[in-house]
C-alpha cells in the first residue's frame, strides 16, 4: 500500500488528484468495510474508494497492467453482454489481459476445479438480455459518464 486510507483522504483534500488516481492503494480496497465501521469520524471510506476507482477508470489513468481495474472492466463487460458472471471464464480473461503467465502458475488449481466439478466453461446467461442492456444503456444521457477509456 503506497498510501494509507488516511493519506488518501488528505491527498484528496489537498487536491493531489493525479497522485490519488495513480495510486495502487485505491485498488487494494477489497470492500470489507472495516474502515467504514471503524472510522471515528464516520467517514464512508469504502464508498470514497469506489468513487476514486470510478474516476480513475473514467479518466483512464490507473496504473498500467494493474490487474484490479482490468478485472473490474472485464467483469463490467461480461455482465453487460450476458447478464451473469461465469467466474472461471472471467478469471481466464483476466489472466490473458493482465498476466498470461499466471495461468501457468495456477494450472493445478484449475485441475482441482475440474476435479471437483466447479470449472464451468459454458457461459451463464439470462434470457432477457435485451431488457437488461436497455436498462443499462438508458443511463447514457449524462455527458460526464462516457464509456470508460481503455488504459493506454
Amino acid at each position, binding site marked *: 500500500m503506497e498510501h494509507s486510507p*488516511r493519506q488518501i483522504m488528505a491527498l484528496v483534500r489537498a487536491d493531489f488528484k493525479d497522485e490519488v488516481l495513480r495510486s495502487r492503494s485505491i485498488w487494494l480496497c477489497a470492500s470489507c468495510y472495516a474502515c467504514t465501521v*471503524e472510522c*471515528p469520524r*464516520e467517514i464512508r471510506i469504502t464508498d470514497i474508494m469506489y468513487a476514486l476507482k470510478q474516476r480513475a477508470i473514467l479518466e483512464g489513468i490507473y496504473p498500467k497492467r494493474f490487474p484490479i481495474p482490468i478485472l473490474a472492466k472485464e467483469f463490467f463487460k461480461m455482465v453487460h453482454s450476458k447478464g451473469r458472471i461465469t467466474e472461471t471464464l472471467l478469471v481466464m480473461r483476466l489472466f490473458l489481459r493482465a498476466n498470461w503467465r499466471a495461468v501457468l502458475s495456477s494450472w493445478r488449481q484449475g485441475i482441482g476445479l475440474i476435479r471437483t466439478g466447479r470449472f464451468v466453461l459454458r457461459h451463464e446467461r439470462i434470457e432477457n438480455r435485451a431488457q437488461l442492456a436497455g436498462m443499462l444503456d438508458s443511463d447514457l444521457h449524462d455527458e460526464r459518464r462516457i464509456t470508460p477509456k481503455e488504459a493506454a
Partner: protein
Amino acid sequence: MKTNLTNGDIRIGFYICHCGHNIGGVVDCTAVAHEITGLPGVVVSRDYKYMCSDPGQELIRNDIREHALNRIVVASCSPLLHEHTFRNAVEAGGLNRYFFQMVNIREHDSWVHTDHAKATTKAVALARAAVLRVRFHRALETTRVAIHPDVLVVGGGISGIHAALTLANAGKKVYLVERDPSIGGHMAKFDKTFPTLDCAACILTPKMSAVRANKNIKLWTYSEVAKVDGYVGNYTVTVRRKPRYVNEELCIGCQECIEACVFKEGKYPDEFNVGLSKRKPIYIPFPQAVPQVVVIDPERCLQLKSGRCKKTCVEACADRQAIDFTQKEEMAEIKVGNIIVATGFKLFDAKRIPQYGYGLYPNVVTSIELERLVTSSGPTGGEIIMRDGRTPQSVAFVLCVGSRDFRTNRWCSRTCCMHSMKLAQLVREHTGADVTVFYLDIRAPGKGCEEFYDKSLKDGIQFVRGRVAEVTDWALTPEEEGKLVIRAEDTLAGVVRRIPVDMIVLAVGMEPQADSQAVRRLFNMSCGSEGWFLEKHPKLAPVSTFTDGVFIAGCCQGPKDIPDSIAQAGAAAAEAMALIDRGYIEQEPNTAYVVEEDCSGCKSCLPLCPYTAITLDGTTQKATINAALCKGCGTCVAACPSGSIRQHLFEDDEIFSEIEGVLTHA
C-alpha cells in the same frame, strides 16, 4: 379596556443603538429614529453609538429630567444582555423601572439579515410596536423573598467536598448527601495526581476528615435525593436514606464484625477496587472511608437474604450493638435555600469497543484498574502485576477510548492524556517496562502539563501518533507469539505498525452518570445533547443553571480535572453565599394573577402550572397564584376559560397594541 393612565400624560423617549457596526452596519438607525419621531406620544427620538455605555445611559437620565419623559423605549440588543442596565437607568432618572420597553434589533434583525433596506423597515416595525406598547405599561414593584441560609450539596466527590467545606467554613449549614457508603468519589481511588505526582490520598484524606469534623456539615452517606420542591431560597428536599444495617451513631469502625463474618474470605467484587479484589457481605469501602462506619450489602448478606445465619457479626459487636438488621429505608425532609449539584461522571465501558479486546484478553485493563494496581493501598499492595501473576515487560496505553469518537462519545474527556502519562511514568518507575502511548493528539493545556509531557518524552516513554485499530492475539512473527499485538497506523511515520506488548491499558473516557436525566428532572436543570448538565451561560455563568438557586460543580457539568473541579466547587459555593448573605431575592413582577371576581373555580389551570404555583383557595373556591413560585410562563393565562388570569407586563392592552404596531405599515 381601560388603563389607569390618562393618555394625554404619555411622554415617550425612544433611543436606537448602533452597537458599533453590529446594528449600524445593517440598519439605518438615523432613519429609524426619524420614523419614530412622528408617533403619538413620542417626545424624544435619538440614535446613539453605544446606548449601554455610561454616556448612553446618561442620555436617558437627562432626557427624563429635561423633557419630563415618563416612558422609555430602547432598540438595541437582547433584553437578556441589557434590559437590566436600561431599567436601572430609567429608575435612576426617577421613573418606575417598568415604564420601559426594550426592542431587540440585533439578534432579531441586523445579525440575521443582509438586505439593509428591509432590515431597516423591520427595525421600524419592531420599534413602533414597542412605542405603542409602552404607553400601557403600569408601575410595578419587585417583591422580595427571604432566603433560607442552609445549603444542600449533592455528591461527595472532591467537588462536593470542597463546596461543602467552603460553605461550612463561612459558617453556613450544609447537608452533604452522597449515594455511596463513603465520600471521596473517584479521587479516593487515585494513587498520585498529575502533573505534580503528589499523593492523592495525602491531599484528599485531610479534606474528608475535615468534613467529618465540621459541625456545620450534616453528612448523609448511602443516601439519595428523592424529591425537590420549592424555589430559590425555599427548597424542601426529601432525602432517601438507605439502610446500612449498622447504626452510624454506635459504630466506631473497629471492623471486628468484618473479621467475624461467616464468610472467611471476601467473595464479592469490591466496588472500590473496581472488581480487582473481593469483599465480604459486611465491609468498609476503603481504609480512609468517611464515615468510618461498616455497611452490610443486603444482596449478599445471608441473614438479610435468607434469615438463616449464625450472625457472628452481631456477636462480635456485642458490647456496642451497632448491627441492626431491622433498619428500614427512611425519608428525611430538609429545608434549604440553595442546592449545589456535584454528581460527577461515570467511566466509559470499554466493552463497547470489542476490537480492543477488553473482557476477552485478561491483560487488557482500563486506566482505573491500573490506578488501583499502582496504589499501595490497592489489591496488589502497589505492585503492577498481570492477571497471570507476571510483571509486564512492555505496556501500551491506548488513548481516546470512548472519547472523540462519533460512534461512542464525541467529546474530549480532557484528563486521559495527562492521566495516562502519569500512569506511564508510574509504570516505568514500578516495573521498568517499555511503555508506548498511542495517541490522537496530546492535549496538555493545564498548568505544568505540557512540561509533564516533555518530561515523559525525556523519560523514554514512546509516543505513537495514531488511533489503535485493534488489539489481537494472533502472531505473525516469533516475537509476537504469546503477546498482545496492537495494530495501528503510525500517522507520523506513515506506516501501519504491529507492536507486541504484555499489557494494554485503555484510557477510558468520561460519560454522564447513567441516571443523569433523572437527576436533571429532579433539580429542574437542563442537559446538553451529550447529557452533561447545562450551565446558564458557557462563559459568564459557568456554575449557575437555568433554575435559580441550583448550581453545578465538577464533572457533572463536563469532563474536567481536579483543579478545575475544585475551582468550580468554590465558585458554586460563592454563588450560593452571595444569595445567602444578601438574605433575599428580588422577583420580577411579570407574574400571573387571578382577578378573583371572574374566576369560576373550574381548576383547569391547576395541573397546567409547571411550577405548582396555583392552588385553589379552600374558602373562596377560587384559584390563587403564589407569586414567589410563578415564573411568568403564561400558560395559565392563555388557558383560563373565563379570562380571569392575567399577567403583569403581558396585559391584553400591552400585547394588542404591540401587535398593532408591528402590523401597521407606515
